């Protein structure tokens, strides 16, 4: 631990990674709670995979046309928002389409387009693995500003409309009857989800995003009675997971994203089995009293 802390003080790439983990953790806790409560994890998965198209296209334009300003994260934001709007509109108004089919289509087409762009991008290419599995150690100072901006946007909008978003997630029909513009807030929820996914992709990569969005929230759900409690707890858990994931992977020279997710999985199963044990204990104690 001491060695890691010394390195953290000296190495700017580690500092960037550490700060990214904290920033992404806050957005993850807030939006992950909405996503799990509304049970739209599959939509988040679809959005996450589709943004490979944007990452690939932006990287292609950077190398082939020399558009240096077109950061791959911009491409990711664009394709994630597009995917969110397509899925959202289909689930709101597309009575003739099956929602899950459309999610699957967005999921797969986005990945395919991304792979084509990456294949056609000249030069030695290790982008693909870092997109798929994340590479938090590659976050530059510029990236960090972009991540901080996205984080502030997602968290502030997500909290500003807390009551409306919660009502839409809990009981859409009742919210509509109270004059809440359900369609607007549902699309807003999906767009914020898209931006959160972009944030998390830098931490753990496209494939592992779902785990980071759901596992900390699931752990928090064992202790929280209210949505905002779940958000705070899930944020704290995610920040801790990201920090310890970074520490363990640095120590053992392992990929950070995968290490973080394994850690999240371990914590999740400990809490699930632990709470079952506690319940059983309480139950047997209760029956002794009888």
């Amino acid at each position, binding site marked *: 631990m001491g060695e890691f802390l010394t390195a953290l003080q000296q190495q700017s790439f580690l500092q960037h990674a550490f700060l990214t983990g904290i920033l992404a953790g806050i957005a993850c806790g807030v939006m992950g709670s909405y996503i799990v409560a509304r049970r739209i994890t599959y939509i988040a998965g679809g959005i996450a995979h589709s943004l490979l198209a944007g990452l690939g296209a932006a990287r292609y334009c950077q190398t082939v046309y020399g558009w240096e300003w077109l950061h791959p994260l911009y491409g990711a934001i664009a394709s994630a928002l597009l995917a969110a709007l397509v899925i959202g509109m289909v689930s709101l108004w597309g009575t003739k389409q099956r929602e899950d089919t459309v999610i699957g289509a967005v999921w797969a087409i986005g990945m395919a387009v991304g792979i084509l762009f990456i294949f056609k991008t000249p030069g030695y290419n290790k982008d693909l693995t870092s997109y798929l599995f994340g590479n938090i150690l590659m976050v530059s100072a510029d990236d960090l500003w972009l991540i901080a901006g996205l984080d502030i946007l997602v968290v502030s909008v997500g909290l500003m409309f807390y009551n409306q978003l*919660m009502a839409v997630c*809990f009981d859409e029909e009742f919210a509509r*009857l*109270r*004059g809440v513009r359900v369609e607007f807030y549902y699309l807003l929820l999906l767009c914020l989800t898209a931006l959160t996914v972009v944030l998390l992709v830098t931490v753990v990569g496209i494939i592992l995003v779902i785990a980071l969005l759901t596992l900390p929230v699931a752990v928090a759900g064992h202790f929280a009675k209210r*949505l905002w409690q779940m958000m705070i707890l899930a944020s704290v858990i995610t920040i801790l997971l990201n920090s310890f994931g970074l520490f363990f992977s640095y120590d053992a020279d392992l990929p950070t994203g995968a290490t973080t997710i394994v850690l999240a999985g371990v914590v999740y199963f400990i809490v699930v089995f632990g709470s079952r044990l506690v319940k059983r204990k309480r139950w047997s104690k209760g029956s002794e009293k009888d």
Partner: protein
Amino acid sequence: MAIQPVIQIKNLTFAYNGLSVLNRVNLTVEERDFLCVVGPNAGGKTTLLKMMLGLLKPDSGSIQVFGLSPLKARNRMGYMPQHVVLDPLFPVCVLDVVLMGRLGKGLRFGFFGKEDRKAAEEALDRVDLMEVKNRSFAELSGGQRQRVLVARALVTEPDLLLLDEPTSNVDSVVETELYELLNQLNKNMTIVLVTHDLGFVSRYVKRVACVNRSVVVHTTSEISGEMINELYGCDVRMVRHDTRAPGEHRHG
């Protein structure tokens, strides 16, 4: 000026996917009425309720609530859905659920104020659930959840209260309590309630609307076994609940 009816439905017809659900329905509900909508499953009860709420539009005919279109009259209606449609694992406490009823009262963003909280607590007090206001909604029994949803409807300060199957999945003691509560509320507001459970309700309600594609309205004193037979299209037996025999059981 003649007193305007609370709900006026004229010649209303509605079909779903080409299948006729409601056919030339006429119905008038006056102020302070306690109308019970009964009928077999898929007979159009819930559809009729959704028409009143403006969630569905009639194919032909008209429906007016307080002399307005249902959409415009929404802020005067309180609605209680079946609690089984709500996610039992949703992280929300009782007070949060009731506060959702205050969303229409001008909250744009941010958090609810003192006034909203006070209104929510008053509503919880009316359904006698103040002591569980900070409990998780998931921990409550079916009957308690129903009452929370009644409180959520009350906090909107409605003149018309619409309830969908408020007694499904609750035992007969809870059912009695719920109807006594509604009976009290009926002094200040009009109530329309959908149920498939007829026999027990009739003690409290003033009128019964039998829905099976068409609508026939009866005052409660008229109800007879013959009428129920006609509605359900087969011979059913009435179970009397007014005497409590040992080992009594409820019919479905």
